[in-house]
């Protein structure tokens, strides 16, 4: 079936199987491998993308269902070679170790800051509670998101 959706601001039309999950569409059809495919069971959250500006687990959405909707992936965060503040924050505060959960964490963090520019640590922890960091680096991830909240322009002031 033919599906048209917006991915990172660009309209995309593809002929896909109705059963194709959004995570595989992004990775295999569009080559956007920044979105990670983890547990397959909507538990780990490494496949989180923004769907009409809100985080969803792309392993539990059919590509067909996303037709007509706006999907944003981690590849969309950096603009004109300038990192998004959440990306910069993860760099500044050691928000990643192995990096597998990072794309999902970044997208949830971006959606949170768009809604609440100055979230408390508790609010950040709730926002990323659908995501698992198997390196258990949660404290650094929370610090990274706080860094992004304090530095909405992104770049380090040091």
């Amino acid at each position, binding site marked *: 079936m033919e599906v048209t959706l917006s991915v990172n601001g660009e309209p995309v039309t593809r002929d896909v199987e109705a059963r*194709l999950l959004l995570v595989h569409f992004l990775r295999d059809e569009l080559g956007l491998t920044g979105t990670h495919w983890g547990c397959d069971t909507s538990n780990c959250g490494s496949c989180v993308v923004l769907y009409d500006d809100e*985080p969803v687990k792309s392993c539990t*959405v059919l590509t067909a269902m996303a037709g007509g909707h706006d999907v944003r992936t981690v590849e969309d965060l950096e603009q004109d070679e300038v990192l998004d503040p959440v990306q910069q924050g993860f760099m500044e505060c050691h928000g990643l170790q192995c990096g597998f959960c990072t794309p999902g964490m970044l997208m949830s963090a971006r959606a949170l800051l768009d809604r609440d520019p100055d979230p408390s640590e508790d609010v950040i922890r709730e926002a990323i509670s659908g995501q698992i960091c198997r390196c258990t680096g949660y404290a650094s991830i929370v610090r990274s998101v706080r860094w992004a909240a304090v530095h909405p322009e992104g770049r380090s002031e040091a």
Partner: protein
Amino acid sequence: MQVPAPIEYERATSVEHAIGLLTRLGDEARLIAGGHSLLPMMKLRLANPEYLIDINDLHGQLSYIDIGATRVRIGAMTRHRELLESVALAEVCPIFRDAERVIADPPVRNRGTLGGALCQADPSEDLSSVCTTLDASCVIRGRDGERVVSMDDFHRGPYETAVRHDEMLIEVRIPMRPHGSSAYAKVDRRAGDWAVAAAGAALWLDEHGTIADARVGLAAVGPNTTGIPAISEALRGRAPGEDAWTEAAAIAEAACRPVTDSRGSADYKRHLAGELTRRTLRTAWERVVAWR
């Protein structure tokens, strides 16, 4: 890699269209709303529909929380997040916010719907227990019109509801009575997991501060999320307080039918059923008193 079996996909543009498609395609067709119950079942090939009818375009029409003097009406496509964030709903039925805080996680709550949760009819699912506690009714629409069934009649057993293959749940109605409040509590192994055990309680006082009525609904401790009428009978006319909660807890422990599994032993779950009944009744009562 978990992928669903091949399917045909249709989008419904109205409730009538969805019901027409269900009628035409027969019992191999399933509605998909948030998809967070059905898609995992399809990936595991536990559900193998030939046709999926996507009703997400009906969100605008079937997502509402309408609070009236005598009843609350909630559209079946209302998403978990909308239930969680509704201040007006939390004021009249705080049990919803209690439950939604511990249902899954934010990305899942962005998609999953009230109707989808009820129609999945998982015995461990929280909103079924919430709706049972609140004595809710379900509005089911078919080709020939609507029928309204109580939660006890709606929930036929694990993964089985009163909704026929060519029908659709469109609304949940909750009766409102004065001087009442409600609460929900769940024990889970990790944040957002399915319950080891959970309990909801609703309580109404009369003009003298005596218990006019009380209801308790348990989740994950039996094949069904039915209420416990014996608790209602025992509490009506009683003075609120620890003696009443303890008696209700004992009834809940005796009435539930938990099984030992990876989430805990039957004995532990039975203990939780009692303790959570005690706590939610106490919280519901404290909320009525604070509210008056």
